[in-house]
């Protein structure tokens, strides 16, 4: 080991506690900002270059570095995103968060020629500004921030494992195969982003149609049913039922009714709304008949939709078998469902909707 390397390693040993402190601040600053901006990422990682790794680097290109401060990746931070667009979002966030050393930062995504594929990642060399932490020692240290997608990360990790870990030079044909895969993953990354954008547009359109009451134009599926439920279509019936005994309403999810409405033959949200309009009054009558002579002052928010389904089955002649199917769909197949159906049928059998 030459004197120059020894001096830089001694500087590394002396500054290690400081860099460890920087590591904690960088990680929490990134994590907090990602949460604050409502971004979802696969991982936020930080790592400190080990002494051995630094020694190896200095052995290879030590003359390039005058002192430890010339080495910008003693601390490395990495944010791995799901989508390519999120790399740009995190980059914009990082530009506001940190002081970027533009001269030494590189967007490797833009370095490739039109006919080459390979390592894609955005590398920023950063410093913590005083607005994050006012500590001259910490503000002075540069660190590297890498931003990449999950697929880019997978490719880079495997490429590193195959290409470098063994220390054996890989024949050109295998390198070409690895780089071909980079091209496929780049396409997959773009496709995932495109699909996400289209799903977001679709949800926005559905939300707009639900808001405008154009329910018959919206096909029934899990996504659209959730949008419909967000408009709280059963609240007014639930409030009427709650008023019977001045009951409190306990909120519960209603998404498990999707399968029930599909079994009823509903193809659009408009079909569900028609059922609601048709049977809401009878559903209330059933609730009044059931709860009217009790002192039960707590109900779940599923009671309105449940009674609409019960009435729909009974009014259409579905009888006890139909009720068993309903309870099976809601609670899973269970012999108790037959007893629940018997009981519900007995309670409802003399109500007006049974003779419609």
């Amino acid at each position, binding site marked *: 080991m030459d004197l120059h390397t020894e001096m830089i390693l001694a500087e590394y040993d002396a500054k290690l506690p400081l860099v460890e402190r920087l590591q904690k601040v960088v990680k929490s600053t990134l994590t907090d900002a990602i949460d604050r901006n409502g971004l979802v990422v696969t991982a936020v990682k930080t790592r400190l270059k080990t002494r051995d790794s630094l020694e190896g680097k200095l052995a290879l290109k030590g003359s390039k570095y005058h002192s430890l401060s010339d080495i910008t990746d003693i601390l490395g931070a990495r944010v791995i995103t799901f989508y390519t667009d999120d790399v740009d979002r995190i980059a914009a966030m990082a530009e506001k968060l940190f002081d970027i050393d533009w001269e030494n930062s590189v967007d490797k995504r833009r370095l490739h020629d039109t006919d080459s594929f390979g390592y894609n990642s955005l590398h920023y060399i950063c410093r913590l500004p005083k607005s994050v932490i006012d500590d001259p020692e910490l503000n002075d240290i540069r660190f590297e921030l890498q931003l990449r997608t999950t697929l880019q990360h997978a490719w880079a990790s495997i490429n590193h494992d195959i290409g470098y870990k063994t220390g054996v030079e890989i024949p050109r044909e295998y390198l070409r195969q690895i780089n071909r895969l980079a091209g496929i993953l780049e396409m997959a990354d773009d496709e995932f982003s495109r699909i996400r954008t289209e799903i977001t547009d679709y949800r926005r359109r559905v939300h707009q149609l639900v808001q405008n009451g154009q329910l018959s134009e919206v096909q029934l599926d899990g996504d659209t049913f959730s949008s419909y439920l967000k408009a709280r279509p059963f609240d007014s019936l639930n409030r009427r039922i709650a008023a019977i005994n001045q009951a409190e309403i306990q909120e519960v999810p209603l998404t498990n009714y999707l399968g029930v409405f599909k079994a009823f033959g509903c193809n659009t949200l408009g079909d569900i709304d028609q059922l609601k309009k048709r049977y809401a009054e009878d559903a209330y009558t059933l609730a009044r008949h*059931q709860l009217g002579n*009790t002192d*039960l002052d707590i109900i779940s928010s599923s009671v309105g939709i449940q009674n609409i389904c019960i009435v729909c089955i009974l009014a259409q002649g579905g009888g006890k078998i139909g009720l068993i199917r309903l309870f099976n769909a*809601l609670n*899973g197949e269970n012999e108790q469902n037959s007893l629940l159906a018997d*009981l519900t049928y007995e309670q409802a059998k003399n109500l007006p909707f049974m003779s419609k």
Partner: protein
Amino acid sequence: MTTTITNNGNQIIAAFAGRLDTAAAVQTAEDIKPLLEVSGKEIILDCTELEYISSSGLRIFLTVRKDAAAHGCKVIVRNINADIRQVFVMTGFVSLFEIQ
């Protein structure tokens, strides 16, 4: 009204006996506290000997359910009689619990 809690491996069983009405609810709420501390287990609310449940009783069951969900536990209501089954249907609580 009595509540007996037993641990049975991956299950914790609360066996209720008597009438879970407003008067009994305060003591029962106290008795079921061990259920609120478990995580990763199946909680069985055994109602074989439970004769009656009021709104106060339903609220206790609801507390167990909420806490269980927060701790990754599943709640099963077992062996309810016809009257209590009726209460569960009328209030919509039937879709809140797995009933066996």
